[in-house]
């Protein structure tokens, strides 16, 4: 299974990010990973949450544009070269990465990296084939 990521379109206006955060926290939804892609005049906020469907609905009800995207949560050993191994695997098996960011998970020896790949199904197959652990739920 892939992870459901929630993306929110943010125009370059002060206070919008704070608003999203408070909507999420007020509803008791847990934020597990967060990243923002910014351009000169807009931003795309990407989040992994414990209740993605609920969060998306909540954001939409509050006037935000939210989009669900399937991404991969990959466990990477938290030592030098951990990420490089996964990257090499993807590279050798034609899994095209569009972007990635790391999760907020801590207190384990493993980090979870969130990958958005071109073809999620193909990504899953490769990870399974090479026995790389995936996180399918937070």
């Amino acid at each position: 299974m892939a992870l459901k990521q929630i993306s929110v379109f943010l125009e370059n206006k002060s206070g919008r990010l704070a608003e999203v955060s408070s909507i999420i926290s007020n509803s008791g939804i847990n934020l597990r990973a967060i990243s923002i892609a910014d351009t000169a005049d807009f931003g795309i906020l990407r989040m992994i949450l414990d209740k993605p469907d609920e969060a998306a609905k909540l954001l939409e009800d509050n006037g935000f544009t939210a989009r669900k995207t399937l991404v991969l949560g990959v466990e990477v050993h938290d030592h030098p070269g951990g990420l490089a191994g996964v990257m090499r695997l993807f590279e050798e098996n034609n899994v095209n990465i569009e972007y990635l960011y790391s999760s907020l998970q801590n207190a384990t020896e493993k980090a979870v990296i969130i990958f958005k790949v071109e073809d999620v199904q193909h990504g899953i197959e490769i990870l399974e084939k090479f026995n790389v652990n995936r996180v399918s739920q937070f």
Partner: protein
Amino acid sequence: MIWNEKNECMSQPEREAKQLESLVRLAETLYTKVEFYRNKFDELGIKPADIQSLKDISKLPFTTKNDLRETYPYGLLATDETNIVEIHQSSGTTGTPVVDAYTQKDIDIWSEAMARSLTMSGVGKNDVIQNAYGYGLFTGGIGVHHGAAAIGANIIPISGGNTERQLKVMKDFGTTILTCTPSYSLYIAEFAADHGISMKDMKLRAGVFGAEPWTEEMRKEMEATLALNAFDIYGLTEITGPGVANECECKDGLHINEDLFYPEIINPDTGEVLPDGEKGELVFTTLTKEGTPILRYRTRDITYLTRGKCACGRTTVKMHRLMGRTDDMLIIRGVNVFPTQIEEILVQMEETQPHYQILVDRGQTHLDEVEVWVEVKDEFFFDETKKMEGLHNRIGHEMKSRLGINAKIKLVEPKSIERSTGKAKRVIDKRKL
């Protein structure tokens, strides 16, 4: 100096007699030679013979920009096509352009009007005129050129742009007169300042600035930064081009060459003619044109008229500098744009909503800057920045290729642009005109 003392300084009764004579001749020509006008006369039940006094002009039909478009290209021609010696078109970009076709006499009249205008700005035959209005179909460049040629001044037909070269030419050839849009003049001043070029070392004496509305504040800035006397010039392709009116040294209104272009101020809602001093829509009739004479053209520009002998000696009626428009047309760096044209582009793109806001301002460069805020449709929000940026660039490209304006596009969240129940406020113009 006055270019044509006889015509510019004659008494009011004398001028009115001339105007009436021209108007009667014009009405006859239009009725016999232009089907478009003949139909309009017939609809109103008017014959040219009904024009007995100048006041009777109010019985005649108006001409709108739309009429000019619908008769493109030669529907309003009042002479044989073989008599045409020059063609110009409006800078408007709404699909069908507006045509002005000139006979040799029309070119002479235009040259005369421009020579009068330049003379009002203090230009004489010993001057060196750097003409930085665009040359081409646009009337700005060629119009000034015709007038300068009539005066016998030295004219440098440099056209707009390439500011570095403008300044080099200005210095090397001892330019005394600069003609361009007011915003470009300020850009030249700033460019010079940034490159350590002192405008005080130039020989510039006067500038004739038009094709865009401007303000007293801009005059102060232009005069200070360019070290010259700034004069306002008015004109429009539909009537002939630049030279319809110009400021004299008193700088308190633009003298209209009213023996050639007859002005009226009307109530834009009722069409009723308003008395001098009252603000309304400016309407022009080309009294002496042969190629494409126009009856009561509705300019959509708002101003008022004042009569009486001016301290400069001229008796021609003066119009106050432009005070606005009766429609929502924007003039962006000399290009005419209607908000509806922007809307059309957005409606045609499936990713965007027809909800938008236009912000116009003169930024640091003093040039007009347009920002268009566009709402993205909910279903076209992509998680990937490259797709979003692609959309962003595509909108900008459409604006450039179809409207000729460089707009800064800002994608905003769906439903974030205020919805109004009445007339939506689409344009925020911060240019303080």
